[in-house]
């Protein structure tokens, strides 16, 4: 029998607000254990949470970017459970009344575009971390991450393959990155997913029994875990056994999962409305204001690049990978340069260098406007392409203004008649043999002389102008002799 995979994700993303969700502590990754915390985020007796309004703004932004309805009134709730990384012994989350309801994310797959529905997005707090044997033996608790704001994006079980699952997660990551609400650094745990997997015979509409794997923090792990779990479930069914509803732990090193706790051990979180916090009110005006602040999202931008600007889909993909890169490209275009040149300089020249150096567009010492000015200099033949590459290398090291760099590095193009004729005269005088070859009809000799003249111009001559001037010098002189 052939089966299809049915998969749904719960994606947790830490919000990149300046401070934590309930207190004024800095919201930053890492730090010496237990240094970024206070009575509130460590849940000391008597301490109370106060909602950071920026968290609401960020969550609404995410909700709108994923086409959700924004609840005018949502309610925080306590999710009660004991674990040493949660010092209040309850997580403040949302339960019956989440902030964002019913959206979707469009995902590209090898089978074509798919629309994956979002059930809800709610806000909650992150927990601390247990450090096992980090300081001698035993387990210690680091509460720095307590109170870091999270959104949980709960998706419908709409995903039908591991590839779709991975692409969906990438699409969500891309959106969160583009709207600047999360660092989405999977390796730092600022984005992670709980994966629910079941299988069913192709053609069946009822859902099979699902299992859940928690806290997967790479796309690769998600893809592998879905495949492995589907295979495991298929093997169970083939052997006439049943899939048991349970939480499983994915071991990415071994490429397999093992059962952690079954349905009968499922925790009863005893949710109830958080009495320390008031309901969260979001007015239509708030929603309109936040909607107006939303940037163009990557999918729409890609469509525009391909459809309106005529950029190749592969290049459009590269140009919209991140907020920094897309923003940079927009800034290049804003300098009034041609689309083709802009794409070439971004994709071939800049991304090529970033790839070889392992750097990211976000931490360059120059901006898209600088790169745009450099491209404009090339287009105006004020700097030739070779010089422009040298200027780009300098920009990447130290930053600066391309025009001034061209001046100070002596790379302004030699384009005046005097400069060109000096270079040509030098080349002809030093290469009498080649000149003679040219005269006896060798076409190759022109190329050689052109190279020598460029060398004499210090590489700065505009190739077109130099070529024309050389031709004129050679043929004009010949004519004169004739």
């Amino acid at each position, binding site marked *: 029998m052939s089966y299809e995979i049915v998969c749904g994700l719960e994606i947790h993303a830490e919000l990149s607000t300046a401070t934590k969700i309930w207190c004024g502590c800095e919201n930053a990754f890492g730090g010496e254990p237990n240094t970024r915390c206070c009575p509130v985020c460590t849940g000391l007796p*008597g301490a109370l949470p106060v909602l950071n309004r920026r968290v609401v703004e960020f969550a609404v932004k995410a909700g709108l970017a994923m086409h959700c309805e924004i609840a005018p009134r949502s309610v925080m709730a306590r999710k009660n459970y004991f674990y040493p990384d949660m*010092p209040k*012994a309850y997580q403040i989350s949302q339960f019956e009344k989440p902030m964002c309801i019913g959206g979707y994310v469009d995902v590209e797959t090898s089978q074509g575009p798919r629309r994956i529905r979002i059930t809800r997005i709610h806000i909650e707090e992150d927990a601390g971390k247990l450090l096992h044997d980090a300081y001698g033996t035993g387990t210690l608790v680091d509460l720095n991450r307590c109170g870091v704001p999270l959104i949980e994006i709960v998706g419908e079980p709409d995903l039908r393959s591991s590839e779709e699952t991975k692409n969906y997660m990438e699409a969500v990551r891309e959106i969160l990155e583009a709207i600047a609400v999360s660092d989405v650094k999977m390796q730092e745990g600022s984005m992670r997913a709980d994966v629910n997997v079941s299988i069913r015979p192709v053609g069946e509409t009822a859902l099979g029994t699902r299992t859940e794997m928690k806290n997967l923090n790479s796309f690769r792990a998600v893809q592998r875990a879905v495949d492995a779990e589907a295979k495991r479930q298929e093997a169970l069914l083939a052997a006439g056994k049943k899939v048991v509803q349970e939480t499983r732990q994915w071991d990415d090193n071994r490429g397999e999962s093992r059962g952690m706790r079954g349905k009968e051990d499922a925790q*009863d979180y005893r949710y109830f409305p958080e009495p320390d916090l008031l309901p969260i009110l979001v007015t239509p005006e708030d929603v309109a204001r936040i909607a107006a602040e939303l940037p163009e999202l990557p999918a729409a931008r890609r469509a525009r690049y391909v459809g309106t600007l005529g950029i190749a889909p592969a290049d459009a993909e590269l140009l919209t990978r991140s907020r920094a890169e897309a923003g940079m490209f927009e800034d290049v275009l804003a300098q009034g340069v041609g689309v083709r040149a802009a794409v070439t300089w971004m994709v071939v020249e800049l991304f090529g260098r970033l790839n070889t150096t392992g750097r990211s567009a976000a931490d360059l010492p120059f901006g898209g406007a600088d790169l745009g000015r450099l491209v404009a200099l090339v287009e105006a033949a004020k700097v030739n392409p070779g010089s422009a590459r040298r200027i780009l290398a300098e920009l990447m090291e130290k930053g600066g203004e391309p025009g001034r760099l061209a001046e100070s590095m002596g790379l302004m193009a030699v384009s005046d008649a005097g400069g060109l004729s000096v270079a040509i005269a030098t080349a002809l005088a030093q290469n009498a043999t080649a000149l003679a070859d040219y005269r006896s009809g060798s076409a190759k000799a022109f190329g050689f002389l052109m190279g020598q003249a460029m060398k004499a111009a210090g590489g700065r001559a505009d190739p077109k102008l130099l070529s024309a001037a050389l031709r004129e010098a050679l043929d004009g002189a010949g004519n004169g002799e004739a």
Partner: protein
Amino acid sequence: MNRSEGPEDLCRIDALALAGLLKLREVSSVEATRAFLDRIARYDGTVGAFLHVRTEDALKDAESAQRTLDAAASGGPEAPAFCGVPVALKDNLSTKGIPTTCASKMLEGYLPPYDATAVERVKASGAVVLGKLNMDEFAMGSSNENSSVKPVRNPWDATRVPGGSSGGSAAAAAAGFAAFTLGSDTGGSIRLPAAFCGVVGLKPTYGSVSRYGLVAFASSLDQIGPLTRSVADAESVFGLLAGRDPHDATSVDRPATASATRGVKGLRVGIPREFLTDAVQPEVRDTVRRAAAWLSAEGATCVECALPAVDYWIPAYYVVSSAEASSNLARFDGVRYGHRAGTYDSIASMYSRSRSEGFGAEVKRRILLGTFVLSAGYHDAYYGSAQKARAHIRAGFEGVFRDHDVLLSPVAPQTAFRLGEKSGDPLQMYLQDICTVGASLAGIPALSVPAGFDGEGLPIGLQLTGPAFSENVLFAAAGCIERSAGCLGRFPDLDRAVASAKGA
């Protein structure tokens, strides 16, 4: 008062009078502080009101307050309202560097790194903190017999309970161990002990006093309030506590009341019939009627009225408060502070042993009850129904307050009972809150004011309840009762208390 009166008298006058003497420099803060400390040293072995006395530190704070008072007297900046006045705080208020145990073994050795907002405000008023006051463990109880350290005895009769859970706060105010004290009230924990000990106790409107730093029992019900020897003191202390605090999202600024009513003329007083049944001690019922006459004599109109939904009060209260408590007390797990079991072999056994050893029987009972009512399958039937009942109770009060400005009732069905009398029967104990939990569930203010004594010389307190933010009206009505009852200035005989405690 003048200097010819002894230091004992400093302990009997109200806080405003003492603040006045200190500002006039008739006495020094050190003298006053020493007078209270001496009294505590002499009598608190019997009363048991304090869990922690800051003898040295309080005297240092008094010296510092005196410098402020001296500077003010020689033309410096005006001293704050209670500069140099010795006060004491219930042990569930977080005090920086001062033990805060909630009278529980669970919090033994816990030294908070921060002050509760109410504590900050009391300190900012210049008051000198004498120490921390005994209570029912985690504020759960009506007799103060649930303290893990020791029971508190009623200063009027040491064989009797002071009421709870702010028993230490009420006993200390009554016994003259502090000029005023702070307590907390979740279902009657200020009002009941205030009534049993013959002092004024106010449970403010929910949200008017910041809960930041109050170790939570039931977050939607808890309020901090004053226990004082006069209505004027209660009003004054409430004034300095009240107001929005950015650290408490449920705190609000008190809306300005139309006028600070001074009298009761024209006040429409309702007397709920539900609290005048045969189940109420006759002398308490008589006192309610007497108080109605006093209020009428000053121009109020008093009529009996029906208070709907009273039957739901106790069940709704114990479901809601226990549910919230089960969650609030989950953080006491032995991981970071307080009691941790000596031996355990897993994280689960560390939790269960630490908590089994650290919590007393009543706290465990409420945690179990609260966990049960929130459990899957029972949640809607219990917690859900209690929330509906709560809305119904609130609506009931709103209806009554359309026709009445204030309600007059007993605080408890009877005066202070004997130690051990009800401690074997939790349900009997819970019924002590029968008159008080309504205001807690509705979030409205209620005040307990001394109104007389029963045949055994035990104080009788009456409760005044009003709509949200009507504290001014409660103070006016309480002022009338205070003037008419003649309780002001009556003081328990602590030497007799010591003798009777020995006899018991």
